[in-house]
């Protein structure tokens, strides 16, 4: 592969998740994977082959899935509870609230294929609500990795964090966006570009698109600060406030409903501390029409072009 091709290559982060989890399992016998008939879709076949006893498959039963995970944690294991994000968070929301968050046990909730990754399978299989739902529950950190490196780092962090966490593992192919050697720091974002005109705060699959938007706008003389906000809870408040103070406005971009995710978190903070113009890009409060994941991102203007348009509006007259 040429260097250019390598730079443009995209990845399914579920693979990185599974590889890192297997590596962890080799190091620490307390690591167990718990799934709901999702051995294949969670990429846990290799884990099962190497550690058959430590792959707990409760069948198609998400409430049981999360409760069993909480019990395994009580018994001294480190459970990675993995299922398609819509079913993990929707079907088992009360278990996440009571058995995991309120009970404060170290369960790593792994939401696979989130956002609109399941495309044509439709809104029943989309997970655009998870960020809103989980942000409403106390004491569950929400981590949305943007690429393979960040996915691996988040998996390793979650295994030894003191309490529960939710990892939203992208399925939609994404390129590498994390500069080599960048550590994953809980509650800290990664600033990817240094623009001073407008800020784009993005998460997950939208980070690479934010970088593309910044490239487009750089050609017109507008400097865009791109921030990868992998931790949605707790939010990197210092980075958000700096952006509010130092640039003309903030665009947020996420593959989730705009009712309560990243954009809402940023807006709540800046409205009460340093109000600034904002554009909140995501899925409006609607059920998506039929279409592939890629089509739906275009449909809702969750593209480099859509982000660039919003950023240009906030930049006003252009470079200052």
């Amino acid at each position, binding site marked *: 592969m040429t260097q250019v091709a390598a730079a443009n290559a995209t990845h399914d982060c579920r693979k990185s998740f599974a590889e890192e989890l297997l590596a962890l399992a080799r190091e620490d016998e307390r690591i*167990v994977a718990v799934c709901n008939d999702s051995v294949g879709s969670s990429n846990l076949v290799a884990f099962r082959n190497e550690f058959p*006893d*430590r792959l*707990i498959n*409760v*069948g198609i*039963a998400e*409430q*049981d*899935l*999360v*409760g*069993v*995970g*909480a*019990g*395994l*944690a*009580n*018994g*001294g*294991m480190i*459970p990675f509870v993995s299922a398609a994000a819509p079913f993990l968070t929707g079907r088992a929301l*009360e*278990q996440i609230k*009571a*058995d995991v968050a*309120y*009970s*404060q*046990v170290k369960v790593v909730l792994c939401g696979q294929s989130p956002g609109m990754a399941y495309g044509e399978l439709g809104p029943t299989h989309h997970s655009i609500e998870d960020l809103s739902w989980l942000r409403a529950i106390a004491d569950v950190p929400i981590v949305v990795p943007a690429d393979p490196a960040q996915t691996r780092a988040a998996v390793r962090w979650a295994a030894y964090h003191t309490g529960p966490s939710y990892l939203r593992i992208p399925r939609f192919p994404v390129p590498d966006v994390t500069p080599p050697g960048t550590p994953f720091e809980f509650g800290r974002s990664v600033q990817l570009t240094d623009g001073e005109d407008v800020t784009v705060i993005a998460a997950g699959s939208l980070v690479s698109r934010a970088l593309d938007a910044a490239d487009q706008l750089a050609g017109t003389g507008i400097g865009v600060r791109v921030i990868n906000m992998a931790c949605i809870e707790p939010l990197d408040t210092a980075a958000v406030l700096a952006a509010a103070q130092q640039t003309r406005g903030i665009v947020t971009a996420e593959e989730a409903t705009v009712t309560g995710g990243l954009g809402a978190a940023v807006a709540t903070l800046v409205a009460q501390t340093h109000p600034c113009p904002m554009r909140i890009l995501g899925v409006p409060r609607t059920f998506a029409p039929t279409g592939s994941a890629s089509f739906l991102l275009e449909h809702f203007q969750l593209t480099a072009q859509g982000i660039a348009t919003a950023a240009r509006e906030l930049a006003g007259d252009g470079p200052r």
Partner: protein
Amino acid sequence: MLTADLERARGYLTERKRLQEASTPDAVAALRALSSSVRLADLEMVSRARLGHIGGDFSVVDILVTLYGAVLSVDPLNPDAPHRDRFILSKGHCAGALYATLAHCGFFPIAELESFAQPLSALNGHPNRTKVPGVETNTGPLGHGFPVAVGCALAAKLRGAANRTFVVLGDGELQEGSNWEAAMTASHYQLGSLTAVVDRNRLQQGARTEETKQLEPLADKWTSFGWQVREVDGHDHAELLDAFRPGNDDRPVCVIAHTTKGKGVSFMEDRVEWHHKVPTREQVDTAREELTR
């Protein structure tokens, strides 16, 4: 987080050992006395707080007392010991009975029961493991405790630990589908160290279980899910002690404990309104008298 009553905790550990080695009649006499104390304490708690679930509390007390008094390997002086037996009260609304039992075993001072449901008390209307020692998971919404108990038993199996896991379920609670998911998982994974106790008082919040959504044939349901079933009088300590013995194969054990809601107080027994009714002062006096007879 509440902390142990050291003296009572030491006494409890000694007494539990004694009862485990005692003849059944001796153990039963001691457990009966403990049940009486726990019911009286619970009556005072509900009366003081003007809330609670006294009917279900009184149906489950003898189960709790038998477990803590002579079965569970738990230590109030070291409530997080890794290889402790696990006990989960899935019918978390009967927290009053659990708190009174835990306090009598020294997990925290009995005087703390006076704070039940008071502002900022550790003793919430439903149990919280981050505040009350001996509580394994925060229950309240029904259908939650059983899957967690399955996870506890699975962890023990994976670690090769010998500890047992007990979970107490309300009978009405079995209308929650998550229980049957858990029942399937437990038998699939051959969790012989797990015992689920059904507090079969035949009443739920608004009516009889069989009028609301019938559970019978209940024993057949459990059997068909791959469980050993033992049916006992849930107020007979000797029968409960026998039912709580370990299983003799890899099947998890279901104890269907036939109980009476409001057990021990004539005007509460088997009456649906005492699910969460609060007794008047006169009724408290009558109840106290009946419970100390």
